[in-house]
């Protein structure tokens, strides 16, 4: 089912419900509104894609959810309701209990995520010991071998003694995924997990992710700039631009009937294998400077359909007939009047 903007907990179904989340970064040059009013919800077992270009706030949103923000950033508004509890109201000591156990995260560069001076077996074992610090060495080793085999690392027993640098990029990422899933989290956040991988390795990894998600029933937030990956892995998608979600809905609906000009622009700007395009559709201009956002709709300087009201006021989020939401004046009577 669809994740939705402005959708406050509709009953008990939502696993995670983010409401009007605001995370700002305080820099010498000014306040960067990295996440500026983001709302969406995810049901258990759902895979949602969070798509946007660099600087749109998708990574910062994820870091806000898991509560690991860089020093200069603060979540200054909104709610993050996970399994009925508001994470923003919790102290750090309680939040630490969620991380890894209920909400896990994997990042882009597996080389950075793994400690180079410990063996892989050691690092995965450490995760298991978090839950059960008194388990015997054999039990833990067996569990490590099991989970590494599950992520399709062959000869897992032998490879326990290897260090991260002895693995290829794709295998390292699988080790990281194994560590993330070891404690059976309810939600996995994957921040650009395949950007650093080759295409064929990416394919392997994404299929694995999908399999594990189906097996364990966990929800997935997949952050990426690649629209192709989202189409293949996710059920729903949210498109972000300059700190806000501009469109969301089921993957089917958004890809077949994109409502927001930015979404449409992105779809048409892609070269697609097998589809002959004379010229790629070009969204003019540059992604905005988050320190000095334009007034009104953040996208209006680059929008082919911008009108007066677009420059003055930020558009309201409207529910779309096909499902999902979009924030654009074209969908509102006031915008259409112009």
């Amino acid at each position: 089912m669809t994740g939705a903007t402005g959708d406050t907990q509709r009953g008990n179904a939502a696993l995670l419900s983010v409401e009007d989340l605001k995370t700002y970064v305080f820099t010498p040059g000014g306040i960067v509104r990295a996440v500026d009013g983001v709302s969406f919800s995810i049901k258990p077992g759902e895979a949602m894609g969070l798509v946007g270009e660099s600087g749109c706030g998708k990574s910062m949103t994820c870091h806000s959810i898991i509560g690991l923000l860089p020093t200069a950033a603060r979540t200054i508004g909104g709610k993050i309701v996970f399994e009925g509890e508001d994470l923003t109201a919790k102290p750090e000591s309680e939040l630490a209990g969620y991380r890894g156990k209920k909400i896990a995260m994997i990042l882009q560069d597996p080389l950075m995520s793994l400690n180079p001076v410990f063996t892989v077996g050691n690092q995965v074992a450490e995760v298991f010991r978090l839950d059960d610090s008194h388990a015997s060495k054999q039990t833990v080793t067996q569990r490590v071998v099991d989970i590494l085999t599950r992520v399709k690392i062959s000869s897992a027993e032998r490879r326990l003694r290897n260090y991260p640098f002895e693995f290829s990029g794709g295998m390292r990422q699988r080790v990281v995924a194994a560590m993330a899933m070891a404690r059976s989290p309810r939600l996995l956040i994957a921040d650009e997990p395949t950007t650093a991988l080759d295409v064929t390795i990416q394919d392997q990894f994404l299929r694995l992710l999908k399999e594990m998600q189906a097996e364990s029933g966990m929800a997935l937030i997949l952050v990426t700039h690649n629209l192709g990956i989202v189409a293949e892995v996710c059920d729903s998608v949210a498109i972000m631009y300059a700190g806000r979600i501009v469109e969301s809905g089921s993957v089917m609906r958004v890809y077949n009937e994109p409502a927001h000009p930015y979404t449409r622009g992105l779809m048409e700007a892609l070269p697609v294998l097998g589809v002959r395009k004379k010229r790629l559709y070009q969204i003019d201009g540059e992604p905005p400077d988050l320190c000095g956002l334009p007034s009104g709709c953040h996208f209006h300087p680059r929008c082919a359909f911008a009108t007066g009201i677009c420059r003055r006021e930020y558009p309201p989020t409207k529910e779309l007939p096909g499902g999902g939401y979009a924030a654009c004046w074209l969908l509102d009577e006031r915008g259409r009047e112009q």
Partner: protein
Amino acid sequence: MAGALATEADINELQCKLGKGRRRIPIGALILLAPLVVFGILGKWIAPHEIMGAPNTANALRPPVFMDGGTWTYLLGTDKLGRDLLSVLIVGARTSLIVCVVGVLFAGVIGIALGLLAGYFGKWVDNVIMRVVDIVMSIPGILFMLLLAAALGPGIKTIIISMGLLMWCGYTRVMRGEVLSIKERDFVAMAKVMGVSKPRILLRHILPSVGSTVIVMATLQAGGAMMMEGGLSFLGLGVQPPYVTWGRIIAENKSVITSAWWVPVFAGLLMTMAIWGFNILGDWLRDVLDPKMRRR
């Protein structure tokens, strides 16, 4: 993320705390280095007393003005040879300054050149230079200085030469490391693709990128040079009379540290200030020379 919701006031406060920019002018460094530079340049012309001439032991070790027995004539007291301490410090600044600056420059020119060559050309050039570095660095510094002093005779020239010959190795190692990493960067490959000649690549592309590291090193070395000079003076290998440096003042007067403490302490204070000032200057320079720190 504890207590997420914040008020407007909190936001402003956070911005002030987290968003501090870098100072435009290194005031601290300027204050600390002022004595060295000002005294060094003006020297004799502002010293209240003459310091050359025969020692006047009757005048020796008078206390400074703020202690019992001190007078305004000798503001900071006098040293073992009866000379006005303030004047000695002022005149000595010049020699200290020259020794530091010229010593560092000498070491720098040798070190940078060899480091560039070793890093850029690699293979046997690199091997030879690095082996020389290894050998020079294994020679005990004091022994080296003694030998040089024996060969060239003691004096200011010898000190500068020995400091130069001892300090260049650090530059070479650092330069070589930096060049090795810059060499692999795409813009150096692009320069080759464009047909830019090797010497020009070295000067135009590699040197500016590693230049800032070197300047920072040089400022830190200046502090080290000052300390080295002090050490040399202690061993009697430093500058000879009638030249005087702050290090020499400390060395000459080390025996009276408990009785006439003002002599070594004031000299030591000035030396500390100068070394500290060099360090701050080095940090500031490194930031200023990085084009990424320039505001749009």
